[in-house]
Each structure stands twice: as C-alpha cells, then as structure tokens.
C-alpha cells in the first residue's frame, strides 16, 4: 500500500480538516450530544405545549372592558361601560348597567349592534311610562346619559 504524505494529499483533495475528538457530552462537531440535549428538548416541548394550551384558554375566555363614548344617531353625554367577550366563534358585547347585548363576528361588529340596541331601547323607554319599576330606573339612567 502506497503511503501518501499529508502535503501530497492536500494538493489533491484540499486541506484536510482533522476530525475533532469529541469531548464529554459533545458530538464530533463540538455540539452537545443527543443524550445531553434530549431532556432539554423534552422539557422545552412540554413548556411550549403548556403555553399553547394557556394561549388557547386566554383566547377563549378573553374579556375586554370598553367605555362606550358615542352612539350612531344620538348624543351620549356620559360613557357607558361595556364588557366584550368571545362567544362561540364570535363575540358578544354587553352593557354593565342595561340589559342589552350585541353580537358579531368581531368585537367591532358586536359593539356596533350593541350601540343600535341601546338607541332602540332608549326610544322604547321614552315612549310611554307603562314599565315596571326596574325599567323606569333604567329609563331615568338612560335619560341622564343620552339625548337626541
């Protein structure tokens, strides 16, 4: 068998990079060996899975508080507190002080319907006094906050 000197070999195949002798817990490229990284990987996968579950839960149960400052056709003198939440694959917006709600495919649509509902309720309440005491209280409450 012909022995080839490193210089001759280099001239034929380029510079020979000697293989690195792996250290403890390292592969031949100096990176941690798979036995070393496996527990870290498993741990990271578990943590990502927990975070994904938490994000899904937060998306599902997310609640937003909004102050309603305007209505489409009437003047709102004081802001109304509104809670916006997911509902199924849509959204629901509800006023805190008045039993009305609006729904929509997104929060803006839900708030838009709620605004129409508030105006519609206001019109109903301003038309007569044949309401129960609870509604008369709501009538007074809305009369203070809304004007034509």
């Amino acid at each position, binding site marked *: 068998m012909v022995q080839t000197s490193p210089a001759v070999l280099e001239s034929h195949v380029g510079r020979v990079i000697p293989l690195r002798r792996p250290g403890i817990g390292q592969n031949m490229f100096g990176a941690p060996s798979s036995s070393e990284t496996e527990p870290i990987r498993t741990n990271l996968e578990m943590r990502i899975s927990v975070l994904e579950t938490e994000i899904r839960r937060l998306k599902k149960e997310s609640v937003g508080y909004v102050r309603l400052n305007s209505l489409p056709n009437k003047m709102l003198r004081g802001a109304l507190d509104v809670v916006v*939440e997911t*509902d*199924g*694959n*849509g959204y*629901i917006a*509800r006023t805190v002080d008045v*039993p*009305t*709600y609006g*729904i929509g495919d997104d929060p803006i649509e839900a708030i838009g*319907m709620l605004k*129409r*509902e508030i105006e*519609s*309720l206001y019109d*109903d309440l301003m038309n007569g006094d*044949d*309401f*129960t*005491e*609870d*509604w008369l209280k709501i009538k007074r409450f809305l009369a203070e906050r809304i004007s034509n």
Partner: protein
Amino acid sequence: MKNTAFDANDVKHCCENKLRVPFREGKEFNGWVTINNKKFARITVPKGRKDIFQKTYKSMANQLRLTTEQFDDLLGCPLNWDQYVEIAKKIPQI
C-alpha cells in the same frame, strides 16, 4: 344549557306564541313581554343567525328574567305562559 338545541327562529316563535311578544322588525327583532299592562321584559333576537352561542343564550334568558334552565323549559315546551307569569310574580315589582 340547551343552546345547541334551538336557533334564533325557535326563540322568536316561542316568544311570540307563548309569551305573546309582538316583535318589531329592525336590524334585530325586539319585543316586550307585558304583564298586567306593564312592560316587564324586553328581548332581542338577532336576525340572520341560526346558532345561538352560550353567552347569547344566557343574555336572552336574562332579558326575559329567567334562568337558563327556565329558558330551556320555555323553549322545550314544559314552561307555558301561566308558569312564566308565576315566575315573574316572584320578582317583587309585579
């Protein structure tokens, strides 16, 4: 909660037939339940939607001053007008 068993039309028809609610048609259906000549409850039924999701269902029940179980019974038949009035009378203002 039996929200998946009923759609918006079921709610509207039930309110019309059992609670004698005359609905006004706008972008949504709105109507009042009247007891002893006083407007007692106002319900909103969304138009153009079939499915009723949980929170919407609960909001409708609340508007009628019912629990979701009582609302289930109203839509599912056992609860009639007289029973509704009995429930309403337990609320002090009637």
